[in-house]
């Protein structure tokens, strides 16, 4: 029979071990907020880059309607490795299949939590879904159910990324005056810089300049805010068949300057603000008897429509073809701000052992020669279908209006997040449509405006509470 003293001794021993393990684990977590980078040594350096940019090299370009950064990433990896001996960059592309992606994202989150996160992230923002159909890859904003970072702005505040501010500020080779400041500020929290925006988008109004001037519409008013645009068109627009107000609800949060306060973890937007905006939207949808679903072309029949910056080159090309003088300007928010959203970004992971080297790699993406030359040529090859904005201002382009758009100052630049997806689908419930020979014909939907507004505010509240 076991001796009571022996049993008591063993119990004490086990209890002591457990308490020691507890204390050790707790105390070992007391690390500094800004971890010191690894000391420089002559050993080989490997950087792990995770991206969701897909390899489209094997695909039929004429069918591929979206531009992937994959080629640019590979090109710059090759250039960087050849300039930096001893540095290897391993690129991981997230899987495209929904189930595989969900598994890999769960693994990634666990790795990040355990302190084994990637060295570099290069991602599309928010909930962009990348899907493959045959030989074509499609990119759908707000179609993804999950993302590595459902809210990049929130991730910045959680300490997931390394503060590269010191490297950025000390980088004298980078021409910061050539960068769109409003876009670059999206990656800043307080005094720290966590993210480098690489691509962005914003809503743009495209118009037949001559027809617009002849219409009697107050052009300054429609340039002032989205509310002004709707009010002016609803009261003076006349024949809506010439004015398909197809505001791109891919990024519905463009309409609002202020959404949430990340520091106070509260929702800044009010239900009344949303209701007022949605009332305008619904009126416009119901009064616009015919909406053309695909990208319209400006001609004598189509005078004005709104789309996004990334379609500017394409619209300019077709306007030229139709001999229409193009007028284009940002579609401002309800408060009159130019609101953009970051569509692709890059950051250094908090666990990166060589953040200085990682920054050296990422800064290449902000050097002008990597930003515009190849992209203009690719866009031209694909009839200028899609070319997103970039923080580096282009110096020249074929069309002055397009150049002005790509160099526009931005007041507010944000990252997409999941609640925007909810908003997009909520707006969709405000109207119903049927497809006729002439196009889409709209009628009121099942949801009323106030319910939709409350649903959005609730979605934002959920987002802030869980984010």
């Amino acid at each position: 029979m076991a001796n009571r003293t022996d049993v008591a001794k063993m119990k004490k021993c086990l209890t002591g071990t457990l308490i020691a393990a507890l204390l050790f684990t707790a105390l070992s977590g007391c690390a500094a907020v800004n971890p010191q980078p690894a000391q420089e040594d002559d050993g080989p350096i490997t950087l792990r880059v995770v991206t969701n940019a897909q390899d489209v090299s094997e695909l039929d370009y004429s069918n591929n309607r979206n531009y992937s950064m994959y080629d640019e990433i590979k090109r710059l990896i090759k250039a960087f490795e050849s300039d930096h001996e001893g540095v290897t960059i391993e690129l991981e592309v997230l899987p495209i299949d929904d189930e595989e992606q969900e598994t890999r994202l769960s693994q990634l989150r666990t790795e990040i939590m355990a302190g084994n996160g990637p060295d570099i992230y290069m991602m599309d923002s928010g909930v962009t879904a990348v899907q493959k159909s045959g030989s074509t890859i499609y990119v759908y904003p707000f179609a993804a159910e999950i993302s590595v970072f459902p809210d990049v702005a929130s991730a910045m505040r959680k300490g997931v990324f390394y503060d590269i501010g010191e490297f950025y500020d000390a980088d004298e080779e980078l021409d910061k005056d050539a960068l769109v400041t409003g876009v670059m500020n999206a990656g800043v929290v307080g005094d720290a810089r966590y993210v480098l925006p690489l691509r962005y988008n914003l809503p743009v109004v495209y118009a037949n300049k001559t027809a617009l001037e002849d219409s009697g519409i107050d052009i300054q008013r429609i340039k002032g805010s989205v509310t002004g645009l709707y009010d002016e068109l609803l009261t003076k627009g006349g024949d809506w068949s010439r004015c398909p107000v197809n505001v791109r609800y891919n990024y519905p949060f463009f309409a609002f300057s202020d959404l949430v306060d990340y520091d106070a973890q509260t929702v800044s937007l009010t239900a009344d603000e949303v209701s007022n905006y949605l009332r305008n939207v619904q009126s416009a949808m119901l009064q616009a008897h015919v909406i053309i679903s695909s990208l319209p072309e400006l001609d004598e029949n189509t005078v004005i429509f709104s789309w996004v910056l990334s379609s500017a080159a394409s619209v300019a090309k077709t306007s030229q073809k139709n001999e229409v003088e193009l007028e284009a300007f940002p579609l401002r928010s309800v408060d009159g701000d130019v609101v953009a959203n970051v569509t692709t970004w890059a950051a250094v992971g908090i666990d990166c052992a060589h953040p200085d080297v990682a920054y050296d790699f990422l800064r290449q993406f902000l050097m002008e020669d990597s930003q515009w030359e190849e992209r203009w040529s690719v866009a031209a090859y694909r009839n200028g279908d899609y070319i997103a904005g970039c923080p580096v201002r282009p110096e020249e382009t074929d069309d002055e209006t397009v150049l002005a758009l790509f160099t526009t100052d931005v007041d507010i630049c944000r990252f997409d997040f999941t609640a925007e997806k909810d908003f997009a689908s909520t707006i969709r419930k405000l109207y119903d449509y049927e497809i006729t020979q002439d196009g889409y014909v709209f009628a009121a939907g099942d949801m009323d405006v106030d319910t939709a507004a409350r649903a959005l505010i609730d979605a934002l509240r959920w987002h802030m509470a869980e984010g």
Partner: protein
Amino acid sequence: MKLSTKNARDGYLLVAPIALGCLLFYALPFVLVLRHSVMQGVGAGQHFVGADNYISVWNNEMFRLAFWNTMRFLLVGLPLILAVSYAIALLLKNQAQKHKLLKSVLLFPYIMPVIGVVLVVDLVFGEVGLLNKVLLAVGLPIEDWLNSPISFWVVMALYIWKNAGYSIILLLSGLAMIPEDQYAAAQIDGASGFQQFWYITVPQMWYAVFFTTIFSLINAFKCFREIFLIGGTHPHEDIYMLQHFINNCFENLSYPKLAVASVLLLIVVAVVFALMYFWVNRKERFRA
């Protein structure tokens, strides 16, 4: 070596594998969760913040909603399932001894695939489900049951239906341990059915009730799978549980929040468990 020491050593060696497993897969993760709950940041950027996370989470309206819903589910569900299972166990007491297959049949709902069960729930209670079709046919108002406050009761009914069989089996085992001659003697003495139940059955069933409650509690948390399949990551607010909050925080990389939620839940469950354990021990003191 003394025999007692050798026995002690052999004993600890025998339990070592399970103890190591518990340490690696339960104790250590729990310690890490505790650590996350008092830290901010991730990986190399983590820093100690004391009770700030606890204060922040406690003031979080969604956490409070989830916490209240979870407690409501337990406070309503556990007594209900115990009462239903106890009643059925008493009714089946004699039959279960004669018909061994009955116990297997009772477990059918428990082993049914979750997906199949949820499909049936959707077919019945969905917006275009059977219930609404019937109500429409008789001219009564319809409702999106799974997106309304009624969803709580749908989930509750599902939980009881699925897990009552398991609880009945456990209680039947307890009932089988009570000697029949006690009932016979009581009957001879003129005790009514209720008196036999109250003075013979209840005092000797505390341990069985205790274990049934523990397993029902575990099964109540497992019910999250069905709720998740019915309502997704953000179901109706009446069935938004702590597991939803924790899951969503994980996807949003809010590790401190999920750690705090886990710790608070553990504290509540541990307190309930401890209270029940002491209560049952007091009741069972007569056996010592």
